[in-house]
Structure formats: structure tokens, C-alpha cells
């Protein structure tokens, strides 16, 4: 299977008054055709910025993609001009945001907003676009499609709006769908429906999904491949089953441990001590060292690199280095 998306050595920096924030630091990942890749990490780990870098949403003057390559279908998105990028966005790469309530224009009808990418990228007439828009509303499982098309966003619930966002995203049959925490703002029963729908569309159209989430339940349910990010770096990646069964990095272990287990009473839920380090104060070290139970001297002074750990996993941890350099 070919890679739809290849990110290599991506660095995205924000230049603030206090200094440079390396929000994404030398990150690499691949999304193969028809695959769901999840990026997991807590808030501030750089997972959303990674997605935004792909979409070209990191905007100056503060933010800048400092280096690397983002290849979509072999084309480096970072080298494209505004217009070339515009024809890819919404057409071949689509994106869903976390907040469906604010991602739709409040003064435009749902139908109008659904028609726009069709008119723009598919060169449909208004009439044809409206017809297709109503079909799409039906496809995402909303009845009374005609009436919904004439509604304004404030008249619909969050779950319905997220379905509309998905309808807009899939309207031009993209090869890659980036979903940035698509279910975070929704209640749990709706979450499952939305995820189901995403998976169904993936299977029907063969598109790939880059799913960004902090919810390990979502990862377990959806992912083929998982990338764990911490403080702007990939700390571990691997096939979902392998990674869940045999996590290598202490951070991944901590994440998995801090998830409640159904049907099993625990007196106290485990949580990783400490907080994500201030991105301004990072020194060459393993960024997780001050929260890590297995911290060694070397972890405080040198940064581990991502290395093969067998079983299709890659991990960046000094514990996995066979020869510990002195």
C-alpha cells in the first residue's frame, strides 16, 4: 500500500516574546492508503499543530513551519503556492475540527455551506450542488435533509453539526481526512455514532484518516497505527494491537494505566505525576524525564532518538538502548 501522507522531520515553531516554542519538533509519520493513523497525546503535545501544519493553517507572523517535508501523494505541500494548495485543500485533503458549533458560519444556511466545496472544486452548478448537498445530509444519517439544508447552524445540535461537518469534509471524496478531536465536544453516545460513521466512509471510499485524539478508547476502536506524541516529539509509535499489548515507553505505559478499566473497581485511578514541561524551558534531555519513574542520569542530559524496538514498534527511550552510552 502506498503512503498517502508522509511527514518527515517536520518542525513547527512559534516565535513568542519569551522565546521560540518548538510546538512540533522533528516529527515524522506516514499514513498509508485506507489506513487510520491516530496521534495521541495530552494537551500541548503538538498533535493539533502537526495537523494544522499539514493543512497550512499555521500562520505568521508568530507561527512558522521551520523545516521538514509534508508529502501528500508525493507532492511536498510546503513547497506549493497558495493556489495549488487551495485546489488540494477541501478537495483531496479534508479536515474536521473539534468544535462543530463554531466551525460553521452562523449566518449561512447549512445547505449553502455544504454546496460551497462542491461548486468550488467539482465545478457543479448551484442546482446540482444543492441536490448533492441534500443527498450528503442524508448520507450522514440526518433525516428531513431538505429542511436541515435550509436551517441555520444554531438550530441544530452539536452532534448534528458534527455530522454536517463530516458531510462537508467527504463531499469532494478526499483521499485523506484529518480529524482533529472530532468527538471531544460531543457526548458519549454521539461519539460512537460519529466514529462509526467515519469508519464506514473510510471503508466505502478507501480514504485514509489521520485522527487526532487524547482518548485512548477512541484509539483502541479506530486506529490501525498509533503515534504517541509528547512535548512536540514522537515518543513511540506502532501497530495498535502491539502498542496496546506491549507499550515500551514509560509515557505510553502511564497513559494506558491511567485509563479506567470497565468492570474492575479501582480505589484510585492512576495518573502520571507532574505536568507537561513548559515548552520554553526545554533543554537537551528526554522531555519526559521529570515525570518518569525510571529516570536515569542520561535522561536528563541527552535526548533519545526514535529507534526500532521490534514488533513493528518504534520508541524513543534510553531504557530501550541496548548499549547505554556513558
Amino acid at each position, binding site marked *: 500500500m502506498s503512503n498517502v501522507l508522509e511527514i518527515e522531520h517536520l518542525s513547527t515553531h512559534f516565535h513568542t516574546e519569551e522565546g521560540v516554542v518548538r510546538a512540533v519538533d522533528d516529527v515524522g509519520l506516514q499514513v498509508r492508503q485506507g489506513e487510520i493513523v491516530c496521534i495521541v497525546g495530552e494537551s500541548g503535545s503538538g498533535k493539533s499543530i502537526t495537523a494544522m501544519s499539514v493543512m497550512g493553517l499555521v500562520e505568521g507572523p508568530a507561527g512558522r513551519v521551520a523545516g521538514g517535508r509534508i508529502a501528500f501523494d508525493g507532492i511536498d505541500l510546503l513547497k506549493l503556492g497558495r493556489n495549488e494548495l487551495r485546489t488540494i485543500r477541501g478537495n483531496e485533503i479534508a479536515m474536521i475540527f473539534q468544535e462543530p458549533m463554531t466551525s460553521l458560519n452562523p449566518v449561512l444556511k447549512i445547505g*449553502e455551506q455544504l454546496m*460551497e466545496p462542491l461548486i*468550488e472544486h467539482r465545478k457543479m452548478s448551484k442546482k446540482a450542488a444543492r441536490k448533492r448537498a441534500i443527498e450528503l445530509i442524508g448520507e450522514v444519517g440526518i433525516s428531513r435533509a431538505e429542511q436541515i439544508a435550509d436551517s441555520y447552524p444554531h438550530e441544530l445540535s452539536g452532534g448534528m453539526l458534527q455530522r454536517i461537518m463530516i458531510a462537508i469534509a467527504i463531499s469532494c471524496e478526499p483521499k485523506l481526512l484529518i480529524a482533529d478531536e472530532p468527538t471531544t465536544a460531543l457526548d458519549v453516545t454521539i461519539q460512537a455514532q460519529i466514529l462509526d460513521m467515519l469508519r464506514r466512509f473510510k471503508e466505502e471510499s478507501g480514504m485514509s484518516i489521520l485522527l487526532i485524539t487524547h482518548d485512548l478508547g477512541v484509539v483502541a476502536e479506530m486506529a490501525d497505527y498509533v503515534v504517541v506524541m509528547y512535548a512536540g516529539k514522537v515518543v513511540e509509535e506502532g501497530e495498535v494491537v502491539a502498542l496496546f499489548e506491549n507499550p515500551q515507553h514509560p509515557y505510553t505505559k502511564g497513559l494506558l494505566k491511567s485509563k479506567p478499566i470497565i468492570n474492575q473497581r479501582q480505589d484510585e485511578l492512576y495518573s502520571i505525576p507532574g505536568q507537561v514541561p513548559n515548552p520554553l524551558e526545554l533543554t537537551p534531555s528526554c522531555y519526559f524525564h521529570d515525570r518518569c519513574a525510571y529516570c536515569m542520569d542520561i535522561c536528563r542530559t541527552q535526548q533519545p532518538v526514535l529507534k526500532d524496538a521490534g514488533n513493528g514498534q518504534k520508541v524513543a527511550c534510553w531504557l530501550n538502548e541496548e548499549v547505554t552510552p556513558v
Partner: protein
Amino acid sequence: MSTIHAEEAGAAKAVPVRTAPHASMWRQSLRRLLKNKLAMLGFAVVAFMFAACFIGPLFSPYTDNKINMAVMNNAPSLKHWLGTDALGRDVLARVLLAGRISLTVGLASMVLSVFVGTLLGVIAGYYRGVVDQLVMRLADLLLTIPSLPLLFIFGALLSEWKVPTDYRMYIVMLMLSIVGWPGLARMVRGQMLSLREREYMQATVVLGLRDRRKLFNHLLPNLVPLIIVIATFNIGGAILSESVLSYFGLGVMAPTPTWGNMIDAANNMIDFQDHPWLWIPPGFSIFATVIAINIFGDGLRDVLDPKQKR
């Protein structure tokens, strides 16, 4: 746009509606506006003024502006409801004809300044950078010069260049829009700066929409309430400025009547004391029209301001 809305509104009606009728923002706003008695009073006065000025003269036998020495400075009577002026012309007919000019100038200069102000404000706010600097510094420049002296200079230039009186009305419109657009452009730009950062604008980037579509399909509709409100106030302001200019003999010139130059014509002790029918009607017209427009504008703002929930 408007035709689509109309069509779709029609389509929505055909579908059996489960909950409350499909209330678009506009319909809701209209309903609220109709409930606002003061605003409706303002609207009634403005509507009356328009109707009187544009239709009224059709029923008057005195609209030819002919000089009639036999009836100089007559007090109001059944024949001349508001009396006659120093040249024997019917004051009522002149007030109404003057109203045509004043209202037209107010409306036209509003349309022009709203068009220019909105366009420049939208572009400056959306693209920022150099374009923004250019547009806003130009606006600042015009805003730093007090508008009345500026208008006076323009007016004096017109007299100096002996611009034919027929054209003066159009040039006055232009002048008023030149001083009218910067304030509006500023407001629109400020609003744009906030709107362009909204998440749904990020969504339009992700959808790969063209700038034209982003600006005019997504951002402009968000600005319409603001623009309507400012435009309303703008008409009042323009009518006032035109009156001031004409009063000083720098706007529209006699014999074409405007409310301003009618008051000017009565600007002496004798007329002031002995012939109040010469200056009270045009003065009252200016007063009533501008107050009514402002009251109506206030009502519109209350209704259209999305931050106000009720």
C-alpha cells in the same frame, strides 16, 4: 443572494414544520423591530417625509417656483398653507421640493460612502499588511481633518471653479461620501479583524475556498447588520451636513431649494421676527427627519446587535 434566500424560504415553507416556524435571523429581527414602538415612530416619520417630499409636490399648483410679486411674504393662509417667501413663492411647495434634494443627497451619499467604506474596510481587515496600512492611514488622514472645514474648503473651491449649479448637487453628494466613508471603513475593518480569526473562517481555508468567496459569501453577511445600522445613521448625518453646507451657501445653490438654503434665505432680523413661516418649516423638517432617522437607527441597532439577547 436575495433571490436564493427568497426561493429557499419558499421551499422551507412547503416542508411540514415540526417546531416553531423557520425563523431566519432577518424575520426574527423584523418581528422585534415591529415591537419597538419608538423605532417604528421614527420609521413612520421618515416614511412620511419621503412620501410627502416625493409625492406631495404632485398635488401642489405652486411647484413651478415662479416669482409672484403680488403675494410677497404672505402669512400662512388657505391658499398658501405655509405662506409665501420674499419672492412670492409658496413655502410648502419649496419645503417639499427641498426635501427631495436633501433626502436624495442624504441617501445617495450614504450609498456611496457605505459602498466605498465597506469595500475598503473589508479588504483592509482581511488582507492586513500593506493594504491595511494604506487604507487606514488614508482614513485616519480624513478623520483627523474636521469634516465641516474640509467640506467648506471643497464648497469654496466649487464656487471658485464656477461649477454649474445643476451639477453642484451631485458634487455635494460626492463630497459628503468622501468625509463619510472613513468612519465606516474603520468599523468594518475592526469587525473583519475579529471575524477573520473565527473558526469557521479557518474551516473555509481548509475547504480551499477562493478569497472572493470567503470575503463576500462568508464575511460580508456577518457584517450586514453593522452596515445597515451605520448606513441609517449615515443618512441623518449626510442630511445634516448638506443643510449646513447649503446654509452657508456652499452646498446646493438657489434657486434650487434645499432645507439649508431656505433657512439661509430667511437669515435676517426681519424675516426671523416677522416671517417665521419662512424658517420654521425647513428647520423643523431637518430636525424631524434627522431625529426620526436616528431613533430608527437606534431601534435597528438594538434589534440587529447579535450580542443582545432577549
